């Protein structure tokens, strides 16, 4: 049997995930509610709490995608907000005029970053960095990485061109990388 505390915990994690992607508390609550209702109304038997969680998250991902699809009809995902523009400007400042890294902006060696994956503090920083990405940029990135769409599908779903999609994903990855470098991976020795 599924007890209430388990459900409360699962629901909390679901809301966190939905909120991260949709950036709207009410919408997040709504999709989570729908996903839970759908999951609990199906007469499926679960081998354990963990199987239940996997199942509801699978449903939640579908609901989030539906919501993003809906939004993409009314908003232009590839339009640049001020935040996106400033992220792009910062990116340009990382290079010298010949488009090679300027010495102080050169990416650092993160050593064995996999070790960080076991630390809760790392995940707090990672979360904060995701939240820090501009909304539309984050949405495209998360659709690719968390909802596990192929990039072509992301472009199709959101009606953006492939080259636009590439620009957005590049912006997201570079933004995230810089945020982690600054806030988690302490700069080691300068490479090159």
């Amino acid at each position, binding site marked *: 049997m599924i007890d209430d505390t*388990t459900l409360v*915990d*699962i629901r909390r*994690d679901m809301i966190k*995930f939905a909120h991260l992607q949709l950036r709207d508390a009410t919408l997040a609550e709504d999709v989570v509610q729908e996903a839970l209702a759908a999951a609990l109304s199906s007469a499926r038997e679960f081998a354990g*709490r*963990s199987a239940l*969680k*996997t199942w509801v*998250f699978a449903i939640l991902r579908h609901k989030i995608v539906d919501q993003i699809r809906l939004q993409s009809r009314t908003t232009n995902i590839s339009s640049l907000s001020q935040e996106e523009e400033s992220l792009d400007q910062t990116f340009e400042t990382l*290079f010298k005029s*010949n*488009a*090679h*890294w300027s010495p102080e902006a*050169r*990416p*650092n*060696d*993160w050593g064995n*970053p*996999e070790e960080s*994956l076991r630390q809760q503090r790392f*995940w707090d920083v*990672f979360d904060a960095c995701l939240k820090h990405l501009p909304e539309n940029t984050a949405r495209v990135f998360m659709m*690719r*990485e*968390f909802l*596990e769409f*192929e*990039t072509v599908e992301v472009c199709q779903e959101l009606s953006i061109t492939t080259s636009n999609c*590439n620009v957005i*994903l*590049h912006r997201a*990855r*570079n933004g*995230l*990388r810089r945020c*982690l*470098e600054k806030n988690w991976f302490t700069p080691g020795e300068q*490479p*090159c």
Partner: protein
Amino acid sequence: MLSCKEVTHLLSKAQDRKITLTERVNLEMHLAICNGCKNFKNQMTFLRQACQRYLKNQEKIDD
């Protein structure tokens, strides 16, 4: 010779599709002599790894 800026775009694309042979050759030539871009490449690999772990963690139940 590709510039570092071009390499960052190519490395991001490589996360999304198979890059062509010419792209691969140009990339390898650049990476052979540029530690900054080599680090960038490892960072891209790590980001993918972190995202996958993120999804896995999400389905775990904390006891």
